[in-house]
C-alpha cells in the first residue's frame, strides 16, 4: 500500500477539476486590474501578463467556460462569485506560503516568492489552513520559534549511511545539507538616481501665474507627509497664483483648491515646467 509517486492520475484529476497555474494567474490579474483601474479588458490582461492578445483571449474563453469570469456588454471582464473566491483563495495561499517559507523556514525572500508563486494555486484549503495555524502557533512565542530555527539551521545529519541513504541516492546528494546558495543572496540593484548635477527647479522658483508638474517631494518627516496628504504627489499640476506682500508665503492652486505654503516648504517640491 505504498504511495505511487509515479501515478499521474492525481495530477490529471487535478488539471481537470481544479485550477491551472496560468488560470490562477489570469484570475488574480483580473482581480488586481479591476482594483487598480476599475476595469479589466483582454488587452489589459495581455499587456499585464506580457502575453499576446490571442493567448489572453483564448485563456479568457477557457475561464468563461469554467464559469469563473463573465464579460459585460462593454467587453469588460468580471469575476463571477466562484472566480472571485478562487482568486482570493490563491492570493491567500500565496501570502501564507510566503510567510511560512520566509518567516518560519528562513528561506531568502526571492526564493520564497518564487516558490510561493509556484504553489499558490495548488494548496488545498485544508493545507493552507493547517499552515496558517502552524505559523500562528510557532510565532506565538518568538523564543520558541528562534530556538526551532536555530536548531534547524544547525542541523547536521549524523548519517550512518555516509551519503548512501535512499534519499541521497535519489537526489544526488544530501538534501539536509542544502543551504542557501550564495548567488541567490544577490544585493539589491543600486538605486538609479536622476542626475543631480543641476539643482532641480522647485515650486519656490515659479513666478505668479506659472504652471508646473510635480516631479518629486523631497525631505522626510512630518512636513513631507503633510505635503503628500495635501495632494502634492508626482505628476500633479500646480499653478503658483500669488506671492504674499512680504514675499513669503506663496499661494498655489492644486487639485482644484487653494493652498498656502512657505517658500522653505515649496523648495522641497521639485517640478518640471509645463509648456503650453
Amino acid at each position: 500500500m505504498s504511495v505511487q509517486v509515479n501515478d499521474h492520475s492525481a495530477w490529471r484529476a487535478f488539471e481537470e477539476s481544479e485550477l491551472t497555474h496560468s488560470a490562477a494567474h489570469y484570475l488574480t490579474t483580473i482581480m488586481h486590474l479591476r482594483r487598480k483601474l476599475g476595469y479589466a479588458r483582454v488587452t489589459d490582461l495581455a499587456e499585464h501578463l506580457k502575453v499576446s492578445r490571442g493567448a489572453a483571449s483564448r485563456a479568457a474563453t477557457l475561464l468563461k467556460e469554467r464559469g469563473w469570469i463573465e464579460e459585460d456588454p462593454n467587453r469588460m471582464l468580471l469575476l463571477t462569485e466562484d472566480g472571485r473566491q478562487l482568486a482570493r483563495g490563491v492570493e491567500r495561499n500565496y501570502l501564507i506560503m510566503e510567510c511560512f517559507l520566509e518567516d518560519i523556514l528562513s528561506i531568502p525572500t526571492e526564493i520564497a516568492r518564487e516558490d510561493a508563486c509556484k504553489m499558490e494555486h495548488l494548496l488545498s484549503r485544508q493545507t493552507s489552513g493547517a499552515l496558517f495555524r502552524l505559523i500562528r502557533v510557532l510565532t506565538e512565542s518568538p523564543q520558541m520559534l528562534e530556538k526551532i530555527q536555530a536548531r534547524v539551521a544547525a542541523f547536521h545529519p549524523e548519517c550512518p549511511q555516509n551519503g548512501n541513504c535512499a534519499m541521497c541516492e535519489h537526489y544526488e546528494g544530501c538534501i539536509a545539507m542544502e543551504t542557501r546558495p550564495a548567488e541567490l543572496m544577490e544585493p539589491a540593484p543600486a538605486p538609479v538616481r536622476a542626475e543631480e548635477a543641476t539643482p532641480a527647479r522647485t515650486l519656490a522658483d515659479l513666478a505668479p501665474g506659472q504652471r508646473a508638474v510635480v516631479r518629486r517631494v523631497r525631505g522626510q518627516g512630518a512636513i513631507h507627509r503633510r505635503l503628500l496628504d495635501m495632494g502634492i504627489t508626482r505628476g500633479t499640476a500646480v499653478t503658483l497664483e500669488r506671492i504674499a506682500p512680504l514675499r513669503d508665503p506663496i499661494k498655489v492652486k492644486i487639485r482644484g483648491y487653494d493652498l498656502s505654503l512657505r517658500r522653505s516648504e515649496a523648495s522641497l517640491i521639485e517640478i518640471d515646467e509645463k509648456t503650453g
Partner: protein
Amino acid sequence: MSDGTSMIPPAATIAAPPQVLSVALVGNPNSGKTSIFNALTGSSQRVANYPGVTVEVAHGVCRRDGCELQLVDLPGTYSLTANSPEERIAREWLVRRRPDVIVQVVDAANLERSLYLTMQLAELGARLVLDLNMMDEAAARGIGIDTEKLAQRLGVEVVTTVASRGEGLEALVAAVGRTAQSRPMRGEELFDYGSDLGRLIDKLAWRLRLTNGRAAALPARWAAIKFIEGDAEIQYWLRNAIPGGGGIANKTLLEMERLGGQNNQSMEAMIAEARYGALAGVITETVVSATPVGQHPTPTSRIDAIVMHRWLGMPIFLALMVALFQFVFTMGEPLMGAIELGIGALATLVTALVPDGPLRSLLVDGIIHGVGGVIVFLPNIVLLFMAIGLLERCGYMARAAFLVDRLMHKIGLHGRSLMPLVTGFGCSVPAIMATRTLEHERDRLATMMAIPLMSCSARLPIYTLLIPAFIPLAWRGVTLFLIYLIGILLAIVLVKLLRVTLLAGEPTPFVMELPPYRLPTPRAVLMDIWQKSALYLRKAGTIILAISIVLWVANSYPQKPLFDVDASAAAASMSAEELETARQGEALAYSISGRLGRAMEPVFAPLGFDWRICTAFIGALAAKEVLVAQLGIVNALGEGDGGSPRLRRVLAERYPPLAGFCIMLFSLIAAPCMATVAVVRRESNSWRWPLLQFTGLTLLAYFLTMAVYQTGRALGWGI
C-alpha cells in the same frame, strides 16, 4: 399584542429594534462638519477635553425614528497621519474606539482631496456614509457629481446635504441606520498599491494577522500601511506590543529600503501617489465639471486679488483690524455700562437685604464686586468673538495669517498667532482661548506665553490714571505708546527665548488650505459666541469666585478694632465721608494685604515702591484694573477711578515720576490676572505653563523695573 401595531408581523419588529449607534463625524477642515453636527444634535451637546491636549471634541445625541445616534464631532483632519493633536485625537477615536458608523462630511466642491481621507477610512474597515455637503456651492461652480456612480464605485452610501439650510439630514440619518447593518468597507477591494508596494503591504498585513492575539486590536492591513508610511506610533506599537514584532519590523524595514531605493522615492510618497492615482479614476468617472477648474475666476479668486494684493493687502488688513477694535470697544462700552449698573443694583439690593456685618461684606465687596469685575468684560468678549468668528468663518482669517506669516515666523510664531495676539490688546482671556486656531502645540504655547505682554484694556485705566499724574502733557501720548511698545518687544524676546529652550524644535509647517469665501450662517456664529461665552462665565463662577473670596479675606481681616483717626484731633474737622475713607485706608493697612504689603516693602524698595503700592498690587492679582481702586483706598481717598484728579495729586506728591513709570512698567509685565492664569491652565491642560508664566513674568518685571529705577536714579531722571 394589544396595541394597534399588531398587524405588523413580528419579523419587522425584529428587523428594526430601537438602535443605539455610536457615530463619528469626520472630514477635512472647512467641510461644514460642525454645521451638520449642530443641525443633528441641536442643544444636546457637551464639550469634552482630552487629557494632555487642548483639543475639544463635542458629543451630542440625535434621536430619530426610534434610532439613537450618539454623535461625536471629531476635529477636522486631512488624513489619518496624526500630524497635529487634532488629527491624533480624531485617529485615536476612529482606530481604538471603533464607532459603529463613520460619517465623512465632504466639501462637494473639493471631492478629490476629500476622497483621500475616504480611502484611508476604507483601509480602516469602516462602515462609512459619505455625506456630500455644500452641494449648492459645487453646483454654482459648475461641478456635477454622479452620486449613484460614486456610491457604486466606493461601495458606500452617498447622501447629499446643504447643512446651512438643513437639507438632506433625514436621508443622512436613514443612511446611517442602513449602513450600521451593512458590511464594512475593505480597502483592498477599492484599490491596490501596485505589485511591489502592494505585495509588501499584504505581506506585512498577513504577518500581523499571523502573530497571535494582540495584532487584532488594530485592523491588520491598515496597520501595515501605516507602518510602511513610517508612522512612528504604529512602529512603536509593532515593536513593543506584538510578540516577535521587532523581527517583523526589521524585515519589513529592510524590504522598504530596497523598494524605496528602486523607485528613488519615499514609501509615504509612493503610498500617497497610489491613493491619489486610484482616486483620479473615481473622479473622472463621477465628476462632471462644466468649466475646467481654474479656467474662470471664481468669486474667491476675485476677492483674493484685492485682499491679498501686493500693495493693498496689508493696508486692508490693518484697516480691518482697526475697524474690528473700534467696533468691539464702541459697541461694548454701553453694554459694559449696563452690566456695571446691574452689578451696582445687585450690590445695593444685597446691602438692603443683608444686615451689616461680615456676611454682607463678603457678598458685596468680595463676591459681587470680585466676580462682577470679571463679568463686566463679557460684552467685549462676546463682541470680539463675534467679529473674529465672522472673519474666521467667512475665510478671511486664513488670508490674514497668510499676509503676516513672514513677520510672525521671524519672531518664532505662526501666521495664525497674529489674531490671538491682537485680541490680547482687548483681553487676555479670549485671546488665549483664540490660540486654538493654531494647529501645533508648540505654536500654541508660545503664543499663550506672549499674550499677557499685550497691554489689555484692563490695564488702560492704570495708564490713564498714572500718566497724567506724572508725565508732562507733551509726553503723555509718547509714554503710552512706549508702554505698549515695551510689551510687544518683550513678547518678541520672550518667544525667541522659549523657542530655543522649552519650546525648541523644528519650525512648524505653514501648509494650510485657503478655503473659499463663504457667508457664515447666523446660527453658526451664534453657536460660536454661545460656546465661548459659556466657557468664560463658567470660569467666572468657579475659579474666579474662589480667588475673589480669598482676596476679600486678605483685604478685610484681621479687622482693626479701633481706628487711629477717630482718636486724632483732625477727626473733628472731617466730614463723615472723609472719616469713612480714612478708616478704610487704616483697615486695609491693618489687614492681611496691608501687612503683606508692609512685609514686601523692603523687597520692592529697590523698585521705588512703598507698602501702599505693594498692597495695591496684591489686589491687582484679581484683575489689573483693581490696582486703581486699591491705590485709592490705601491712600485714604476712597475707591479711585482712572479720572480721579485728587488721587493723581496725592500720588504726584508722594512719588517721583520715575516711580510712577515703574508702577506702569511693573503692572504691564508682572503677574497676569487670575482669569488669565485660570484660562492658561485650562487651555494648556496643565499647571506647568500658567505657573511658569506667572513666576517668569513676575521675576522679569521685578528685575527689569529695578534696573529701570536704579538706572533712572543714578542718572537723575525723573526724581
